[in-house]
Structures are given as structure tokens and as C-alpha cells.
């Protein structure tokens, strides 16, 4: 079984070039030093305060995401291709959003069914016809990738709203550099620490039309009980901007203001880490206490920019996902560089038939689900689980999509018995503003359980530092 997976370090008994230094590194490291370093890493994470609360689990609110010290490595050449593919996708997704809130050419051309766009839950009628600054809807695009061979990458899903996890990309690197400085002297590893600066520049580059000065950027968080709060405060700190809650903001006249010790201060760009539905109780959910009443009026009249733009969620819907290669061809006139995973829509009769007949070999996901919840991994499920899931699909077929079980690549990982291959994925963070930027790296998530293909941190996944070797 193991031999069918692409091992990123060993190929046909030989070490692949990007991992050569690491082979000596692990060979030279005695077991005691390893556990010492692992404990040191954990202490560092805990001291810094990076913890992760898992929804609905209770338990320790200060849980850490397990950090694996064995890095994941890409060559400059491999990365160059990924970078082109990721940027291409980010451009197409934004072109799609601009289009569907405008003339809807792609629908008129019959390339995407109108129903999937205009009846999509994430479609915000409230912003139809409004063009955000620079026509950008999704300013931070997180694209989840998996690898199945030396040159085979598949996009698992796109995240156009507020992809999280970038703080781990930055902290994992910090901690590795602190613990193993020699590794960084021996390998030429492209730095990722420009990310906060690039993010700030990206956000400032989409200042609203009414802004005639150096734009004031803030991050809007749901509050300190949110599981990603650490990330919000971390990014605010690194960018040197205020971290605000809804209660800190108010609308007066044509602008949004924040309450400061020196009186009200105008806010121009809001990087929001709350969902559309909670942004403005006057426009969306009236019971939301997290948002700012009147915010959407200011937004639509060019007094403030909201990042990502309200309504950007249509583009990362799992039903729309199937059409991304089509978008790339339609808007950019290019061939897609990164492949989609073949996907069956259970809402379609013939697809449903195929899915139900082949359930034990497939991965089935809820269209609107996230975080690895409510999914079936066919090959890992028991017969009873498969059957009960089949019932759920039959009850609401339109809610599910299915994909073949991909042979996710593996990277060596420190486990109890020593070093063993574990499955990984990758989330790079592409920034879209005046320019499109991508720092060389991303978040590698690793399924720590032997044989497991689920990398989500809510399901026992861990994280690794991700290296791109300089060319």
C-alpha cells in the first residue's frame, strides 16, 4: 500500500535532491536530542501563545496544534510552476466574482449554470452592481493543494473568504530558525517573513475611492473567544494596525470610525475575519452583535473597503469549484496550470448513480462544509458508515460532491517509533491587490495518524515548516 504513494523524500530507494541535507540532519540527530527539541518547540509555541480551540469539543481551550519538526521541501523549479498556477487561479477567481456581480458574461455564455451562481447561498444581492476598489473581491486567496507525483498537483479547494493558518506558516519558520540555525546556513531557504508587509501593502492598495490620505487599515475579529483569535492579533501586531471588534467601530456620516482614547478615528480598509452574515445587522443578520450597523451603506458608497469583499464566498463554493478551469479559459484565455480533482456532483442524476455505486472508493464532502467535518473517506470507512452515509446522500443529493480518493504524497515525519512517512497537503496564501503576490511557502498540514488522509487540525492533524529552496 505504502509504495503507491509518492514519497517526497525517497524515490526508488534514493533521496530526492531537495531533501539531501535533511538526510544527514536526521542521521546525526540522536533520539534524546530529538525529544528535547520537540519539547522545546512545544514550550515555545505555548509561551508565544499560539493555541487552537476546537469547535464543539470542550476540553483544553489552550490546545496546541502539533508541530512536526521535519520540514517539507520544494525546489525553486517546482515552486515556480506552483506559483504560476496559484496566481493564475487567484486572477481567474477574482475575474469571476467581478463578472457575476456585474454583467454575468460567463453565465450568459452558458459556461456556468445560472442556478449555481445566483441561487448560491453565498451570493450577496446587496452588492450586485457594486465594483470594489481595483475590482478585487478576494484579497487573500488560500488554495489547498495536494501532490500525487513529482509533477502532479491537484487543487483540493479554493478559499476566497478569510483563509486562516498563515500565522502557523510564519511561526513554524521562526521556531525552526531558532531551534536549528545550522540547517538554515546549510540550505538556501527562501524567507517568508515579508508576508505581513505584503499583506499591509495589498490592503492599503485597495483603499476606497473617498480616501484621500494614507489609508488606515484595521483587522476586524469576532473576539477573543474565536479559535483563530491568536492569528488575528498576531497579524495586526506584525502589520502595525489595530485589531478591532464590531463594538469598537461605528458609522457616522459617510464613514466608519473606531473608538480610541483620543476620540473617533476614521477607518479606510477593514480586513475582516468574520463572515458576511455578521458584518452589518442592518443589511444581513439582524441578530448579529459582532458587526457594525450601517457598514454596508458606507461600503457601497465608497467610504470604506471590506476585505474580502462581501459576496466573495460564491467563488469557493464546492459546486463552483468544478468550473474554475473553465473560468481560467474564459477570462484569461489560458490553459489551467493546476489541475482540479475530478468531481462528481451528487445533484446530477448520472453522477449520483456513479457515486452511490462506488462509495467505498470515494471521498464525499458536503458542499458547504469545511474543516473536515461531515465527510466520508470511503476506503477508511466501515461498511456501516458507508451505508449510513449513502442514506444521507440520497436524502439530499444536492448537498454532496464526491471525488476519487487521491494518493496524497507523504513526507517523513517524526513519530513515536522514529521517522515515518505521513500524508500532507499544502495551503499557500496568494495576495491580490494592486499586484498579485505570493511568498515562497505556505502551510503544510500533516495527518499524524498512520495511513490517515485527513489533515485538518480539528481532526488530529499537525503542521510542518514548508521550505522553498532558492534557485
Amino acid at each position: 500500500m505504502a509504495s503507491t504513494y509518492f514519497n517526497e523524500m525517497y524515490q526508488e530507494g534514493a533521496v530526492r535532491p531537495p531533501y539531501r541535507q535533511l538526510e544527514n540532519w536526521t542521521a546525526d540527530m540522536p533520539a534524546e536530542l530529538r525529544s528535547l527539541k520537540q519539547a522545546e518547540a512545544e514550550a515555545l509555541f505555548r509561551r508565544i501563545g499560539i493555541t487552537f480551540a476546537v469547535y464543539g469539543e470542550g476540553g483544553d481551550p489552550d490546545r496546541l496544534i502539533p508541530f512536526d519538526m521535519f520540514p517539507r521541501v520544494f525546489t525553486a523549479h517546482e515552486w515556480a510552476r506552483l506559483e504560476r498556477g496559484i496566481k493564475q487561479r487567484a486572477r481567474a477567481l477574482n475575474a469571476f466574482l467581478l463578472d457575476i456581480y456585474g454583467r454575468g458574461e460567463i453565465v450568459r455564455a452558458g459556461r456556468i449554470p445560472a442556478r449555481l451562481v445566483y441561487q448560491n447561498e453565498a451570493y450577496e444581492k446587496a452588492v450586485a452592481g457594486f465594483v470594489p476598489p481595483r475590482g478585487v473581491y478576494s484579497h487573500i486567496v488560500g488554495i489547498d493543494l495536494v501532490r500525487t507525483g513529482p509533477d502532479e498537483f491537484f487543487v483540493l479547494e479554493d478559499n476566497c473568504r478569510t483563509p486562516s493558518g498563515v500565522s502557523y506558516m510564519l511561526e513554524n519558520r521562526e521556531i525552526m530558525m531558532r531551534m536549528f540555525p545550522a540547517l538554515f546556513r546549510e540550505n538556501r531557504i527562501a524567507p517568508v517573513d515579508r508576508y505581513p508587509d505584503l499583506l499591509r501593502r495589498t490592503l492599503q492598495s485597495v483603499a476606497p475611492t473617498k480616501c484621500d490620505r494614507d489609508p488606515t487599515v484595521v483587522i476586524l475579529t469576532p473576539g477573543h473567544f474565536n479559535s483563530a483569535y491568536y492569528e488575528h492579533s498576531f497579524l495586526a501586531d506584525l502589520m502595525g494596525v489595530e485589531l478591532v471588534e464590531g463594538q469598537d467601530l461605528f458609522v457616522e456620516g459617510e464613514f466608519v470610525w473606531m473608538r480610541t482614547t483620543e476620540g473617533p478615528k476614521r477607518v479606510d480598509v477593514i480586513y475582516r475575519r468574520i463572515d458576511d452574515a455578521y458584518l452589518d445587522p442592518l443589511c444581513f443578520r439582524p441578530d448579529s452583535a459582532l458587526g457594525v450597523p450601517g457598514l454596508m451603506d458606507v461600503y457601497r458608497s465608497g467610504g470604506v473597503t471590506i476585505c474580502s469583499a462581501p459576496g466573495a464566498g460564491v467563488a469557493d463554493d464546492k459546486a463552483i469549484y468544478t468550473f474554475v478551469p473553465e473560468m481560467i479559459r474564459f477570462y484569461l484565455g489560458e490553459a489551467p496550470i493546476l489541475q482540479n480533482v475530478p468531481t462528481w456532483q451528487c445533484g446530477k442524476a448520472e453522477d449520483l448513480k456513479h457515486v452511490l455505486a462506488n462509495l467505498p472508493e470515494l471521498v464525499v464532502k458536503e458542499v458547504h462544509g469545511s474543516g473536515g467535518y461531515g465527510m466520508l473517506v470511503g476506503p477508511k470507512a466501515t461498511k456501516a458508515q458507508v451505508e449510513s452515509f449513502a442514506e444521507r446522500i440520497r436524502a439530499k443529493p444536492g448537498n454532496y460532491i464526491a471525488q476519487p480518493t487521491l494518493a496524497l504524497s507523504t513526507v517523513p515525519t517524526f513519530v513515536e517509533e522514529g521517522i515515518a512517512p505521513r500524508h500532507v497537503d499544502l495551503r499557500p496564501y496568494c495576495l491580490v491587490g494592486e499586484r498579485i503576490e505570493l511568498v515562497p511557502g505556505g502551510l503544510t498540514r500533516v495527518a499524524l495518524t498512520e495511513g490517515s488522509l485527513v489533515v485538518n487540525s480539528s481532526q488530529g492533524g499537525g503542521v510542518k515548516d514548508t521550505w522553498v529552496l532558492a534557485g
Partner: protein
Amino acid sequence: MLSRTADNLYWITRYMERAETMARLLDVGGRMALLPSTGEGFHSEWESLLQASGTAEGFAHKYGDPVQRNIESYFFFDRDNPSSILSCITQARENARIVRGALTTLVWDTLNTAFQEVRALERRPRSELDLSFLTDWTMRHSALLRGAIDGTQLRKDGWDFLNLGYYLERADNTARLLDVKYYVLLPGIDFVGSGLDNYQWTTLLRAMSAHRAFHWAYGGEVTSRKIAHFLILNIQSPRSLRSSVEGMTDHLDRLARGYGTSGQAQSKARALLAELVETTVEDVFDEGLHEFLTRFIGDVAGLGGLIHETYLSGDVR
């Protein structure tokens, strides 16, 4: 700075100062329990501490009679007691977590370490932890945080809000500690000036970590007048009411200079300070120590209200 951020900073230090006061109270309690009974047994000593910390009702509701072991647990570990040391440190750390970006790494680290340690202490059997260990532990962490703040925080508005929290809480706490002595411990006037009385005053000085400092400052017999002067009016005494109010005035003035506008909070603080500068210990005793302290506690609360209104609520346009 966001008003809410200023609010969080101000509460970090208020909670930590309160934790320290709780430790001092416990220390006083431990010492007083070693004294010969004043007729009502140990009972009244512990009772008075509950009164001083404003937690008598909550305690009675949960435990009934004030037994030393229960009081120790209640003051140190009880999560139902919002003023317990564990509660205070948890609150301080939560406030810090919210404004992590406004704190230096060292300040966060110090506070977070105290929090992790107190949670570890909570899991240990109570029989392994004696009272003096717990009070020393608290004072040490409190001092570490103060040092980290003083040594590393940038001297801008955030630093002023951190210090305002300290001084305001301290002014209130010192006044309350003093008030316990007069108000509860000595129900009958006969004891004033007796040997026992002096011993209790001395214990109070110890609780303020001022025992030796007092002798340096005054020398000779310990008298209630000297002690009152030391804890209320002496600018050399770090915990005196005057020092606390002076600290508040300084930081409010710094804020006013930085922001280019002065308000009611500054006026109130200055008025309070001016009064303390003019007051003699005779004036205090003429008014009645308890009456004086009650008025002072009210004034400090009023000042706290003005600080909230001016800077922390964000409502001033």
C-alpha cells in the same frame, strides 16, 4: 489607541495588583491567627479579612463558618470568588491575551507563565502547599510583571494605562486594608493603644511589606499615628494613599500632554492630591479614620469612573 485596548491594559494591572493584595491579606490572616484570641477567637480575624476584601457574603454562602483552610482555598484558588488570586491572574492573562500586540514579549511571557503555573498549582493537593509558599509565589510573580512592564514597555499611552490600573487599585486596596484594622478588628475602644493593638498594627505593616521601611522612616515606638501617617500621607511609602494618588496624577498628566487635552479626570486627581498634601495626621483622626477612609475610597471610585468615561468607554466624541 483603541479605547477597548486601553481598557484591557488598565484591567491587567488592576487584577494583578488585586491578586497581590489578596496575598497580603492572606499573609496578615496567617499572622493574626497566631495571636492570642481577643475574646471571639480566631473567628473574628478571618471574618475581618473577608470583610476587607468584600467577599464575606460569597464565602458565607459557599462555606459557612470561616475556617482557615477554607479561607485559604477561597482566597487563592476559588474560581467562584472573582477576587481570588487564581481568578485575578486568569482575568489579567485573558485581558493580556486580547491585547497581546500592545505588550512586549517579556510582559506577555511573564504573565502567561504565572497563569500556567497557577493552573499547575491548582492541580496539586492542597496539603502540599502551605500558606507562606502561596503568598510568596504571588508576590514574586506580581513583582516580575511590574519589572517586565517597567523595563520593557514603550513609554507611550499604553504604559500610562497600565500604571493607572496599578495606582488606582493600590489606592483603593491600601485604604481598605487600613479600614479593616480600625473598622473591624477593634470593636471596643479599650484596645486602642494596648500592647495587643500595637502588635496588630505591626502585623499590618508587615502585610504592606513596610515593616522595616517604617523603622527606617520613623524609628522609635510604633504608634497608630505614625502608622497612619506612613500609610496615608508619607510620600516615601510606596503603598501610601498619597504615593498612589501622585502616581495617578502623573500618568493622567502624561496622557493629557500626549493627547493635547486635559479633562475632568485630571482635575479630580489633582484635587485629591492637593487635599492629601495639605492634610495632617491630626486632621485624619479628627475626621475619624474610618470616615476619612470611606470618603477616600469613594473619591477613588469616582476618579475611576472619570477615567473610564474619558478614555476607556470610547463614548466621548
